């Protein structure tokens, strides 16, 4: 992994000459962000090669503990079990908003948190109950363990169970495609991936936009975190520093997530 990952300069920033290979592994939702960050980082440090791997948050933790990866990328909070396995340093690098989305053809444009919860509890089954047309609601959710779902159940569901009949998709893309293809579907995805074939709903009258996330009026959000074994050192530290630098944070914003405070 971190081969000859020494830096010859005395501070971790920009101008110092860095060399070696850095491996980041984990959450697939963080992966595109890490990739763009790595692209920039490598441009600035031609001697560095950054490998960005996916595999999921759990694989990221696994790989970081075993040393196969220098940095693990996780799109949810670490579980207690994971925290106990090894001494891991957690560095939040971005905030990602989670949007509740429906088909653009749906005439509903905003819901109360309580309604969303009731839909996902299976109590509200038809769009007409909440101001839509007379059609059954197709509830689309993410899989157990997903960071997006984690945020959704914590904030919207209050840890109550999502209805068993919900359609489960295991990626942002699949949820998007499902909702884009079904006029009566509702789902939730990372705000950065909303696009024009699905429509984000206002929640409790708050639009799903950066300002509301920042101000905390739009509560549905989750962190992207980097984990390292012990405190980050060498290349890993240099990279994390870069990510947290204004330049790095700007890239994150360009890609659709939000700065860490």
């Amino acid at each position, binding site marked *: 992994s971190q081969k000859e990952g020494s830096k010859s300069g005395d501070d971790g920033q920009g101008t110092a000459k860095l060399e070696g290979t850095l491996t980041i592994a984990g959450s697939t939702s963080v992966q595109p962000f890490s990739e763009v960050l790595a692209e920039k980082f490598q441009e600035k440090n031609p001697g560095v090669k950054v490998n960005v791997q996916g595999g*999921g948050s*759990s694989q990221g933790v696994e790989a970081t503990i075993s040393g196969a990866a220098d940095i693990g990328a996780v799109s949810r909070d670490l579980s207690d079990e994971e925290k106990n396995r090894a001494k891991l340093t957690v560095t939040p690098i971005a905030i990602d908003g989670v949007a509740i989305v429906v088909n653009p053809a749906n005439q509903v444009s905003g819901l109360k948190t309580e309604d969303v919860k009731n839909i996902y509890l299976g109590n509200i089954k038809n769009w007409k109950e909440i101001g839509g047309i007379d059609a059954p609601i197709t509830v689309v959710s993410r899989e*157990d363990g997903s960071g997006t779902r984690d945020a959704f159940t914590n904030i919207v569901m209050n840890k109550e169970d999502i209805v068993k*009949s919900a*359609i*489960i998709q295991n990626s942002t893309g*699949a949820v998007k*495609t499902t909702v884009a*293809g079904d006029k009566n579907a509702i789902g939730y995805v990372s705000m950065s991936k909303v696009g024009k074939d699905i429509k984000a709903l206002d929640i409790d009258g708050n639009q799903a936009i950066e300002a509301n996330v920042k101000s905390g009026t739009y509560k549905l959000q989750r962190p992207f975190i980097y984990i390292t074994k012990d405190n980050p050192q060498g290349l890993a530290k240099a990279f994390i520093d870069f990510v947290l630098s204004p330049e790095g944070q700007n890239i994150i914003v360009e890609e659709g997530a939000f700065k860490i405070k």
Partner: protein
Amino acid sequence: MELITKPGLSNCEKKNRSLIVAENRHRRVDVEKLIEKTLLLSAAVFVLIIALITIFIFAKGLPLFSKIGLGDFLFSNQWNPTKGFFGIGTMFIGTLLVTMGAMLWSVPIGLSSAIFMAEIAPPRIGKTLGQLVNLLAGIPSVVYGFVGLIVIVPFIRESFGGNGMSLLAGAIILGIMILPTIINISRDSLLAVPNDYKSSSLALGATHFQTIRYVIVPAARSGIITSVVLGMGRAIGETMAVVMVTGNSAMIPTSILAPIRTMTSNIVLEMGYASGDHQTALFATGMVLFLLIVGLNLIINRLAKAGTDDGRG
């Protein structure tokens, strides 16, 4: 080997050839032995791999049963990892149903098109078709999944109701994915049936179809069984596409239009993000799947063996 009488003979002028493995022949024989050993090793690789995989899956999966009874795991329909409920009963049923559903249409269509390519279509067309079918085998599962999601699911929703993500959608997509395996392996073994059988049958006044039905297909039986077994293996093991079109609700389906979750889907869906007991439960799912496949193969082996004695080989 018993020796009754030694031949009592004199003056035997021998050629300078020795039947016995003598020094000068040593090397040649050694090469043969060496090759046999190498080939034996190749075969042993299978056992080694399976052993490694077994150890690995079982080591990771077995600990679950210290917390949850095997019966609960197998037969309970409650799957709620965050709350600590791990029951794969629904997925067991889902796996069986979607595999059967896929086989139900793709085996007959696959076999009859294999026959079409081998026996009925002009050889050139048959060959071209075979090569095209190989293309189907190379299309990544994800593409099938998205095609399913964008084309087949809405089609089902519009034509039959429900939301489209269903057992039916899974069976259609899976069936398409195993077609190449079924078609091309059976086609090959149909083509390998000696021509003499065909002419003998036709000369007895059999129609072309009767010849196919009663001589050619039975003679190619073992290859056809292989194709179906490999196809079924692929069906059970295929996930990426199934996950995208079956809806994955952990419920017992009430109709072919209801969503289902298979055991493989369960693993693929959650493994990337699972930890702790949840992860162990997913490995235990893999373990059950593994045993299911072994059992299934034992049964097929038995069935295929019954009445294969045609005196060849």
